[in-house]
């Protein structure tokens, strides 16, 4: 069964939100949805680069009141 994994990375210091995304990805399987919330402005380009490299699908990338929300569909797991 597909799952939705929510990763709250708001207000994190270095090493930042991408760390939490990678860790969630290790546990995830194809079909799962990973939703990441972050406040670090660097997260937007970072998540785009990560999706491009890993071949997963970026379903949504929005920013509201300083909170970035990225929704990723896991499709590239072996």
């Amino acid at each position, binding site marked *: 069964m597909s799952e939705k994994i929510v990763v709250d*990375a708001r*207000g994190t210091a*270095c*090493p*930042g939100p991408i760390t939490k995304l*990678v860790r969630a990805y290790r546990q995830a399987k194809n079909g799962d949805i990973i939703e990441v919330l972050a406040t670090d402005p660097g997260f937007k380009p970072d998540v785009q680069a990560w999706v491009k490299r890993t071949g997963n699908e970026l379903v949504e990338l929005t920013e509201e009141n300083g909170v970035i929300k990225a929704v990723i569909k896991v499709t590239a797991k072996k």
Partner: protein
Amino acid sequence: MTEKVVVLGAGTGGLVAANLLVSHGYDVTLVEKKDYHLFQPGMLWIAFQGHDPSKYMRRVDTLVKPGVNLLKDTVESIDLNERTVKLESGKTLDYDKLIIALGVSYDYDSVPGHRQLWETYGDYFSGPEHAQRLWKHVSSLREGKLVLAAADPLYKCPPAPHKAAFLSSYTLKKMGRKDKVEVILALPFIHAYPSETMAKIVEPKLEEAGVTVMTMFTVESIDVENKKIYSMEGEELEYDVAAVIPINKGPQIEITPDSVKDEDGFIKVNKYTLEVEGFDDVYAIGDCNNTPTSKTGVTAHLGAEVVVDRILGYDAKFTGRTNCPIVANGTATFVISSYEHPVIPVKFSKFKRMLEDLFIAAYWSSLRDPEKWRSVFKAYFEATDPTKLGESGW
């Protein structure tokens, strides 16, 4: 009656907390399983420059102030409801206040092939003897690839592998093998450093040192027979010698209630007060807690100060401040951030190298006599507050 404080673990955080509390007149018991405290960054110099481990080790009993009741024992379980700590020897301790400072534990079994790789080559995380094993392999590598990678993006001291890359490249240069041995730094992050701001500063230095950088490479499995490492992101790397940072997990002890641990065994705390979730008489400091900041000696030290102040009755708060040093040849920089402010740009300089060398020289003294260093560190951390320095950096 004096309050009884039990401190678990005589690492950076535990020693600072115990020594500060005893100087304020508390009845302090400190439990540590090892005879020696290791200055962990020293493993880099052991593994990549062949330093003698004794340089980076001190007996724990020489690092505690008179008055601290030091027990050499292993913590097995803690019951936060009963306020008791059970030790391997069979002893049970009770407490008025408890400070957990047990650091991380390492998992070499979740990544296939990792344990075998570690047993063969060692690494620069798990202890001086393993760092010495790595040195044996690095120093006898005449040609080929030295791969420095990580099994997970969450490991203590985010710039440790960068320091490893700088130090090994200088060693190879000195040995005249720079053109024959390629140093490859392969890490899970998007850029050469977790924060892009610092990546822009660190990457040219790595290039200058001749280090090959691979981004978005999280080790998924290792084939030791064929000397290949595979990443979660779908790539592979060949190596001649490799050191892979193990998955870091919380301490290997039983805690009641179990709900205070997260899925990796890190202890859940309020990120400002460092109180363990649901218990106002228990704190977890340093690497063993789940605060969203870097796991470093600096954060463990600052966390210990916050907790001691809170026990004394002040409303102190932990800021998540980081100050991770990256040393390169003759220069250094620091990765500076906090909960309130993302990483600021900090350039490499000789002056910062001097500061870092001073911090290292002060290490043993700052553990045993933390009260003497408080005003020095306070001035440094205020002067370099990321919210004050801002985007223009340092």
